[in-house]
């Protein structure tokens, strides 16, 4: 064993390269609110946000918001897309898709274009989807315009 060829020890550069490779997929820096950190105020970001701690005030991002299990948000939330596994006390407005996992607890109104709710998620509030608003308005217009057409037809028949 004395004459065994010593295995080459990785140099610091190699270790750093290895570490960089591990994170190569997530090289883009995003805002992360870590556990046991409290954020108060208007929390706005242009990039993705990951919340693992507590946020109070308001949260705004044009990109993706991820609220992890154990995280607490006591604020109104506006985001491009969101995945929620923690607790949110406040209204949520999401432009694209909102995903609620089984551990999600939401106390407030929810507005999203696409809503995915896993079994076990709790919502206490109103759910609105902007896709339906247009069709409702169309239906209302149709029902309103239908009797008017009938009256016009009757009037034309009387004249003839």
């Amino acid at each position, binding site marked *: 064993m004395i004459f065994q060829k010593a295995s080459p020890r990785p140099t610091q550069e190699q270790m750093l390269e290895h*570490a960089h490779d591990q994170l190569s997929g997530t090289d883009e820096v995003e805002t992360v609110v870590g556990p046991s950190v409290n954020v108060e105020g208007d929390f706005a970001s242009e990039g993705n946000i990951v919340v693992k701690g507590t946020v109070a005030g308001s949260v705004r991002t044009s990109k993706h918001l991820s609220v992890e299990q154990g995280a607490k948000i006591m604020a109104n939330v506006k985001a491009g897309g969101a995945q929620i596994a923690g607790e949110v006390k406040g209204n949520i407005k999401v432009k694209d898709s909102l995903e609620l996992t089984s551990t999600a607890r939401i106390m407030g109104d929810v507005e999203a274009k696409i809503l995915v709710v896993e079994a076990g998620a709790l919502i206490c509030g109103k759910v609105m989807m902007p896709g339906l608003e247009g069709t409702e308005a169309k239906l209302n217009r149709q029902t309103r315009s239908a009797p008017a057409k009938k009256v016009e037809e009757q009037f034309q028949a009387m004249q003839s």
Partner: protein
Amino acid sequence: MYVYIYDNFLREKKYASVVKAMEVSLTDYGIAGKILRLNNYTDAKPIIDDEIKRGAKTIVMVGNDQTFGHILSRAATCECSFGFLPVGSNNTIAEVLGIPSGVAACEVLSRRRIERMDVGWMNNRYFVAQLHIPPAKVEVIYDEKFKVTANDKMEVVVCNLQPFYWKKNNHGETQVVHPQDGKLEAFLRPLTKKRWWGYTYEDPSIFPFEEMEIRGAEPFTVEADGKATKEIKVKIKLAHSKVEMIIGKNRKF
């Protein structure tokens, strides 16, 4: 015209051969110039300003991370290009700039690949690589909009050029985050008490920002580019494209 600022530690005998070889190489490339020696208590800005008046166009720092921080913390606003020749150990900034250590750095300098770099501004001086606040009871206010606090002490690292490394778990796995250009990144690591004694680091929080303020109830240590001071309130800003720097092909930003 090139002016070379040598750090004081280069007087040591063990660096004599490297310095000699570098001087020969610089003469070969035709970029040799005046040599000045830096002392610990000298402010680099008036010296550089004097040399610029005499016609210097490029100021080359010769030494390690500390030399780099010492000179650029005051002289970042000077109207000239900066070069760097790393010598000896403790040269992490050179690695980020893509400048090899020793004689090989002379070739990078001769190629004059110039890039304008953002620098961080802290109270009344600049930092280029990193600002570090060892664990202390502080609160951080970002862009005057939101405040970040921790239950106990918190370590703060603000990165401009230098990547942030931290050990993710006990197996020694290292995580790296490379800072973005055009923003400063703040990494906050709160400490939580571990059973009877000692503290453990929590996962870091990451906030990209352009302006922030760190306040403490008691004075806390601030290390900007390896230079430590005691502060009670620190205002940190990003100064866009402030420094003109000669960098290597293998730069990491």
